[in-house]
């Protein structure tokens, strides 16, 4: 188990009802963290439309996560 801080934005934050939480998760990669949060908050957004960053650096869904990392979950963007 790893201790991961997860930050939610926009739609994800509203759905989770919280902007940030620290979880103990059994996760090797970013997508494992994403699925754990989906299970926890009963969300069905597919990862394909979303983006992820680890410790403020854009990452891929199969990027490895380490104990103590902060994972940022970005719903689909619509800037401008």
């Amino acid at each position, binding site marked *: 188990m790893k201790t991961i801080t997860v930050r939610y*934005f*926009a*739609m994800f934050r*509203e759905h989770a009802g919280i902007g940030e939480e620290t979880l103990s998760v059994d996760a090797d990669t970013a997508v494992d963290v994403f699925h754990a949060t989906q299970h926890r908050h009963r969300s*069905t*957004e*597919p990862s394909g*439309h979303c*983006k992820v*960053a680890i410790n*403020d650096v*854009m990452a891929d869904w199969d990027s490895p996560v380490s104990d103590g990392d902060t994972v*940022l979950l*970005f*719903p*689909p*963007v*619509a*800037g*401008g």
Partner: protein
Amino acid sequence: MIEMTTAEIRPDELRQQLFDPAAGAYCGFEGWIRNHNEGHDVLRLEYEAYEPLAITEGEKILAEARECYPHLKAHCVHRTGMLEIGDCAVWVGVSSPHRDEAFQACRYIIDQLKVRLPIWKKEHYADGHSGWVNCERCAKSA
């Protein structure tokens, strides 16, 4: 340079920073809040950004444009917070020796900003409802 701000965007002051005696062309783009989207009457729009990565990604986009067009000067400002109809949400300004580069670079920058920056907008509708733009559609298509 890219900036995030909660204050009114002032294109006229911003464009002066792009002045260059070697520049013969200036192209500016502004995204304005409009009163409708996909059949809904929109009253206002709320922008949320994750600034640290919006800045990093925005600088990357500007660097890509300057790599294609070496004599380019380019600058961008994106606003966040609650915006009203007619407000300017994003401004992109580009100056260069010739107009072809100016148009192409300006278009490249705004197109990339829209899909790559961690910025989200929530529409507030005349019927009292609200919704995150794009997200609802993505969820439906899941």
